[in-house]
């Protein structure tokens, strides 16, 4: 009742906040993304489809749809979605399970569902639904979250989804993002630090142990190294695996390294001419570095930092915890994805397929990202200017 009163009051208040800075940053990234998608894909698109703008057109279409969806979501009070939290979680589970019989395979992994002409990655849906579900759950839990039971509840809830994403869709990066979103939302909603430091140390130790074991296994000539084991070896010495697992990484490093400080100029990338396959996808950042140089790479990172900064400002001024947590969830999603992508492209971490938000080619990804931005804008509209 109190909520409804307050929202009516906000609606009548003409001083409601519209975060134009956020909108501008997103639009800039989208526009820049389209330019880079065209730059990276036109040569190959011309060869394969006889149409240089093949990928650009598809991406532009998805972006427009996404922008419409964003505007719609931004104009719906975000509390409207709270009632769908549990259903969203279940829908994610069902969609991922549908992959098993109906999944569409591409690039050696079954990750897509085709519904009529639309292709959909359940992983994208799952990330959005997870943000919604956790925000709702943490709000309902209240003080419970300070206790051990509540803490572990929040950590365990995303695990089934993460495991399904990892095992069913062979998509470890999405699984990491789902878990990462949960950890960040838990971190923000829980006053404790100690547990998180321990958790972080445990994760670092675990990762180090995995790397150590794989290197030892490789040294002792054990042939049972699987797909991911080879990936880690290729990460440590990409040139030794140049024709196999290290191929993409090597090509990305050639692109980045040959860009130098000032880059070769927009459109002048050599690596996109088939050397770096499907440069418009996950490895697009390396072509940005090749064409626009260190400055271009820094500019993109700075744009994402500004985006995260806007998220932080909105989260910290959100009218309630639910809104704040939604924004923190989106922040976590985008921040983790950007960091993982750039880390992969620069071979800072082992290679795992992950796209660069707003910039990489991929319709389903950009649409769901824009829906998330719509949610954030909706939360931002709840801020009264006098509170700022």
């Amino acid at each position: 009742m109190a909520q409804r009163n307050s929202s009516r009051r906000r609606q009548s208040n003409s001083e409601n906040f519209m975060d134009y800075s956020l909108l501008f940053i997103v639009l800039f990234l989208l526009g820049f993304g389209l330019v880079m998608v065209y730059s990276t894909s036109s040569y190959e698109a011309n060869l394969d489809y006889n149409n240089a703008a093949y990928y650009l057109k598809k991406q532009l279409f998805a972006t427009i749809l996404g922008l419409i969806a964003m505007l719609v979501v931004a104009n719906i009070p975000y509390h409207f979605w709270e009632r769908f939290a549990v259903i969203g979680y279940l829908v994610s589970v069902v969609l991922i399970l549908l992959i098993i019989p109906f999944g569409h395979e591409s690039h050696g992994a079954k990750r897509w569902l085709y519904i009529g002409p639309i292709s959909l990655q359940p992983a994208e849906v799952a990330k959005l639904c997870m943000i919604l579900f956790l925000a709702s759950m943490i709000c309902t839990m209240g003080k419970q979250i300070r206790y051990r039971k509540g803490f572990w509840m929040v950590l365990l809830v995303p695990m089934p989804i993460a495991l399904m994403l990892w095992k069913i869709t062979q998509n470890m990066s999405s699984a990491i993002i789902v878990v990462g979103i949960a950890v960040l939302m838990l971190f923000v909603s829980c006053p404790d630090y100690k547990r998180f430091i321990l958790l972080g140390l445990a994760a670092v130790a675990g990762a180090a142990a995995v790397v150590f074991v794989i290197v030892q296994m490789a040294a002792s000539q054990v042939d049972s190294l699987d797909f991911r084991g080879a990936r880690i070896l290729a990460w440590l010495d990409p040139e030794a695996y140049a024709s196999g697992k290290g191929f993409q990484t090597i090509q990305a490093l050639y692109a980045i390294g040959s860009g130098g400080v000032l880059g070769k100029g927009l459109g002048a990338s050599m690596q996109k001419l088939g050397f770096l396959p499907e440069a418009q996808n996950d490895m697009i950042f390396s072509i940005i570095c090749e064409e626009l140089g260190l400055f271009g790479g820094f500019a993109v990172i700075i744009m994402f930092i500004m985006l995260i900064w806007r998220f932080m400002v909105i989260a910290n001024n959100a009218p309630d915890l639910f809104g704040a947590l939604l924004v923190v969830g989106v922040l976590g999603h985008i921040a983790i994805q950007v960091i993982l992508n750039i880390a992969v492209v620069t071979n800072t971490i082992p290679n795992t397929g992950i796209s660069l938000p707003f910039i990489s080619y991929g319709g389903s990804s950009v649409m769901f990202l824009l829906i998330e931005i719509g949610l954030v804008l909706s939360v931002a509209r709840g801020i009264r200017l006098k509170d700022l």
Partner: protein
Amino acid sequence: MMDEMPYQHKTYHRSKTVVVMFLCLIVFGILMGRLVYLMVFRSEYYTMKAKELHERERSIKAARGRIIDAGGKVLADNKTVCTISVIHSQITDAEAVIAMLCKELGLSEEYVRKRVEKYSSIEKIKSNVDKSVGDAIRAYDLAGVKVDEDYKRYYPYDSLGSKVLGFTGGDNQGIIGLEVIYEEYLQGEAGTILTVTDAKGVEVAEAGEERVEPVGGQDLYISMDMNIQSYATQLALQTMETKEADSVSILVMNPQNGEIYAMVNVPEFNLNDPYTLPDTVDGDNVSEEKKQELLNGMWRNGCINDTYEPGSTFKIITAAAGLESGAVKPTDTFNCPGFIMVEDRKIRCHKVGGHGAEDFVQGTMNSCNPVFITVGLRIGVERYYSYFKQFGLLDRTGIDLPGEAGTIMHNVDNIGPVELATISFGQSFQITPIQLAVTASSIINGGRRITPHFGVRVADNDGSNSQVFSYPVRDHVVSEETSETMRYILEQVVAEGSGKNGAVEGYRVGGKTATSQTLPRGSGRYIASFLGFAPADDPQVLAVAIINNPQGTYYGGQIAAPVVRQLFENILPYLEKMDYNKT
């Protein structure tokens, strides 16, 4: 709860969100550091690696150095030929390209269409196309058609001196002859075109190309004289035909310095078409191996690669050894009853009735075997063998042609009186014709063992950077006195003896004939030969003619000596004129 929430929200939620922000900033900072490392400190390395990956190297053949004869005539040259290719991705009007290529190259439409429509980066249509045709195709200026110029070795005189000059292979490398020996001077340095390509190898036009120009090979100037060589070739061919011989070799050289003016081995082969066997040989229905064997046989240079029993021409060496050792003097008298007993063996003279009483000069003029056997036995095995060594007969001559055969000689321990006797008149061992010519040269030129050669000098295409070759000369092989005596005796051989068919009016010619039966004895196969030089008192030219398996008359004095005479009749005035011009 509603009262509590704003409070919480304003305290630790806020601060924790700020912590998240800062954590992100730290991670982004690390990634930016990584970018700085990759794009500033490792940039040079990755730029180099990427360049290696993007650039395709095409080599540009260097023009091979020419081979030029003593008179400045070009014996081996380069011809510009074109390679016609199509680049699928650049073709705009496929039909026009197909029609044009069919017309200009005379190819079937089916053949051309298949290649033009094939999806590949670059497809070769035809290579070794004449430059005029290449220019015509270029004039059409059709997109996607590429005309690459290239050099091909070209021999203006086809088969002239084929076994000496040699030819080159597909990569312009020498296969046989002088082309092999002087490879390092002739080949030049290939240039490169660096082009930037995409991953499929298609050139990226905007990127342009980097060229490293080829450096042409140096021209080789040789002592062969095209006029002498071609006249000798005519003579050899004529002789081979009239005598129905298997092959005829003529070697003409300067006995003073080892320069070779001509080296003919008929049948020769066409240097511009070296892989076609002559019509008389069936090269179609044989295995690859057999065909290669036949080709190798066709390319063999008999003057150098093959050995034979020299027969009586070798008496020059025996005489020189006898005179040098003091075992015989020109005035020593001998008696030839038509045979001589060596141990229990009766060795016959070619004149059944015997030559009767004769001195050493007459014995040489008669080419009398008993005389030379006697001289050989007087010298003795040890001394004879040491002269053999001193004359250089046991080593190769060191001629600048590949595959020189060595001397096949008895081991010194196995030479008994009978062997020594047969060696004395040139049988039971084998040497190459060039070995005979060089050894005879050193005996008549005052005792200087010269190195036979063709290569005189190399120079750049414009004549600069000339580098003159020098060849080893070994002095005092025989004394000047012995040399003079030998010149006198050999002049007598031609003037009044067995070599009188080699005499040339108006010139003093020295020489020695030979007729040797080839192994196995009794096969009826002979080698007739004659070694002549002129002028006899100061030899400027020495010639050897060898007729292999002539039909009918097979005596060297009757069939080989006239060949050298005809040769001398023509080249002696010519050489005098040449000398006149030089001074």
